[in-house]
C-alpha cells in the first residue's frame, strides 16, 4: 500500500517536473567583496525536499545544503575562491530520498568596485555633505547666517530680571549625561549666556551637576561669563557643584534645592531621562518660571506639559548655535536646513508622481 502510494506521488512529481516552468541559476552574488555565489530556483511547491551540491571539476559533487522550494534562493559563501568556476547541482528527491531529477548551473565569484544598490544613498551623501560643508566654510569666512530667534530664549532676560526683583536664585540643570552627549554641550552653551545675564543683574545662580567632567567645564563657562560681564569678582566657585553620579540620587538632591531655595526660575537644558517628570513637577509646585530643552523624544512631553517654555528637539541645538554664534554650529544648522528643504521638495514631487501612478522616484530612493 505504502509503496504504491509513494509510486503515485513520485510519478506525480515527475510529471509536474516536465509540466511546469523550472529554473535553476547560479551567479556571482552582486555588490559584495567576493567569496559568495547566489543560487536561485523556481520549482513547484509540491517538491518535498531538494539538495544542493557543489563541485569544482564537474565530477566530485559535495552536498552543501538541504533546501525547500519556498526558500527560492541560497547564498553559498563557504570556502568560495574568487575567479574559480564552481558547478552546482540541484537534486530533487522523493520522499524515500532517491534523486528524481537534477539541474545544473555554474558561476564564478568576484568582488565589485561599486555597490549599485547604493546610488541614491551616494547622491544624498554628496548633496547633504556638500551643503553642510559649504555653509560651515562660508560662516568661517565671516558670512552672516540668519537663524530665527527661538521663542524660549527671550524669557532668559525676563526670568533673570524677575529673580533679581524677588531676591531669589536661578537654578540651572544641565541634564544627566556626560560631555560626550551633544545635548549637554548645547545646554552648557546656553548656560554661558544665562550666567552672563545673571552677572549683569547681580543675581545668583545654582548649577548642580552629576558628572565630574561636566563640573569642570560648567565652572569654566560660568567663570568666563562673569568675566565677560565685567564682574569677575562676583563669581562664586561653589555656585557650580557636584551632587552624585546616580540618577535618582541626583534628582533627590535637585529636588531638595528647589524646595529649600524656592528659585524664581529653573532651567533644564540637556539630556534627560526618566527624572524629567520628577524635576518638572517639583519646579511647577514651587511656582518657578520653568524653561526646558532636550532632544530626548520620550521626555519632551513632560516638559511641554509642566514648563512655561520648552525647546523641542533640534531647537536646543539651534538655540545653542544662536547664542554661541560659533561658525561651525551655525553653518551646520544652515546646511541641515537646506537638507530639510531638499526633503520637502522631493517629498512633494514624489507624492504627485505617486498620485499619477509613476513610481520611479520612490523606487529609486527606496533601494537598500
Amino acid at each position, binding site marked *: 500500500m505504502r509503496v504504491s502510494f509513494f509510486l503515485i506521488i513520485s510519478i506525480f512529481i515527475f510529471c509536474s517536473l516536465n509540466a511546469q516552468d523550472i529554473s535553476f541559476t547560479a551567479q556571482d552574488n552582486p555588490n559584495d567583496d567576493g567569496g559568495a555565489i547566489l543560487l536561485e530556483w523556481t520549482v513547484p511547491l509540491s517538491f518535498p525536499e531538494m539538495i544542493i551540491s557543489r563541485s569544482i571539476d564537474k565530477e566530485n559533487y559535495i552536498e552543501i545544503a538541504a533546501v525547500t522550494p519556498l526558500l527560492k534562493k541560497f547564498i553559498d559563501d563557504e570556502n568560495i575562491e574568487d575567479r574559480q568556476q564552481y558547478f552546482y547541482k540541484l537534486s530533487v528527491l522523493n520522499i524515500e530520498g532517491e534523486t528524481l531529477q537534477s539541474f545544473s548551473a555554474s558561476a564564478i565569484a568576484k568582488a565589485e568596485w561599486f555597490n549599485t544598490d547604493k546610488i541614491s544613498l551616494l547622491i544624498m551623501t554628496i548633496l547633504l555633505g556638500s551643503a553642510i560643508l559649504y555653509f560651515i566654510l562660508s560662516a568661517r569666512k565671516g558670512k552672516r547666517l540668519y537663524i*530665527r530667534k527661538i521663542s524660549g530664549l527671550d524669557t532668559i532676560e525676563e526670568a533673570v530680571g524677575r529673580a533679581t526683583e524677588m531676591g531669589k536664585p536661578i537654578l540651572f540643570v544641565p541634564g544627566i549625561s556626560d560631555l560626550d552627549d551633544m545635548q549637554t554641550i548645547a545646554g552648557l552653551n546656553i548656560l554661558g549666556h544665562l550666567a552672563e545675564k545673571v552677572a549683569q543683574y547681580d543675581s545668583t545662580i545654582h548649577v548642580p551637576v552629576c558628572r565630574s567632567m561636566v563640573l569642570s567645564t560648567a565652572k569654566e563657562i560660568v567663570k568666563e561669563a562673569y568675566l565677560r560681564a565685567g564682574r569677575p569678582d562676583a563669581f562664586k566657585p561653589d555656585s557650580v557643584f557636584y551632587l552624585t553620579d546616580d540618577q535618582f540620587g541626583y534628582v533627590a538632591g535637585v529636588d531638595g534645592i528647589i524646595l529649600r531655595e524656592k528659585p524664581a526660575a529653573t532651567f533644564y537644558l540637556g539630556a534627560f531621562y526618566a527624572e524629567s517628570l520628577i524635576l518638572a513637577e517639583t519646579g511647577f509646585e514651587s511656582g518657578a518660571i520653568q524653561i526646558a530643552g532636550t532632544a530626548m523624544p*520620550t521626555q519632551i512631553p513632560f516638559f511641554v506639559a509642566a514648563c512655561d517654555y520648552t525647546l523641542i528637539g533640534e531647537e536646543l541645538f539651534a538655540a545653542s548655535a544662536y547664542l554661541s554664534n560659533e561658525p561651525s554650529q551655525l553653518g551646520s544648522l544652515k546646511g541641515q536646513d537646506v537638507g530639510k528643504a531638499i526633503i*520637502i521638495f522631493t*517629498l512633494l514631487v514624489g507624492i504627485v508622481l505617486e*498620485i499619477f501612478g509613476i513610481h520611479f522616484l520612490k523606487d529609486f530612493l527606496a533601494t537598500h
Partner: protein
Amino acid sequence: MAILMDRIGIWVGVFLTFAIFSFLYKDNPFYKIAEQIFIGISAGYWFIYTIYNILMPNLFIPVTSDFTHNFILLIPAFLGILMLCRLIPSIDWVSRYALAVVIGTTAGLFFKRYLQSDVLNQLTATMLNPFATSNAAQIAGELILIIGTITGIVYFFFSKKHEGAFGVTARVGIYFLMVSFGAAFGYTVMARISLLIGRLNFLLGDWLGIIKP
C-alpha cells in the same frame, strides 16, 4: 535546602523592595543602603559579563590559542589598554587615541545609517498616494500623515522667520508634534504602571502567595 534558600532570597528581595519604596515617603538610610547595593551589584555584573562574554572569547582565547592568525588583535588590545590609562590623570591624554577610533567608527556608521533609515527611508515612506483606497478613514489618515510630516519639518526650519504663510505652516506642525507628545505621554504612563504591576505580582505572588505568580 534550595527551597529554604529560595524563601530567604525572597525575603531579602522583599526587604530591598520596601527599602526602595520608602523613598516615596522621603529619602532615608534604608533607601540609601539599597541604592548603593544596587550600584555595586550592577557594576560587578557588567564587569564579570564583559570579561566572560567579550574579552575572553573575542580577545584572550583567540590570541592565546592561535597567535599567528590572531596577532592583529593585539592592536585593539593595545588601544583598550590606552583607554584604561584614563584612570591615571598624568597620562590620561593617551586614551584619546582609542577614543578617536571609537568616535570615528561611530560617526562614520551613524552618518550613513541615519541618512538611510531616518532620512531616506522616512522620506519614501511618506511618498503615498492617499487616494489609492476608497476607505475614508484611511484617506483622511494618509493626508494627515503627509501634512503632519511636512509641517513638522517646517517647524524645525531655523533659517526663516515664522511669519505669514510659513508661520501658519509651522503652527500646524507644532500641533502635530503635540499630538505625538501626548501619545508618547500616554504610552509612558502605561509603561510605568506595568513596572508597578510586576512589583506587586512579586509581593502578592512570590512573597505572600495571595495570587498565583
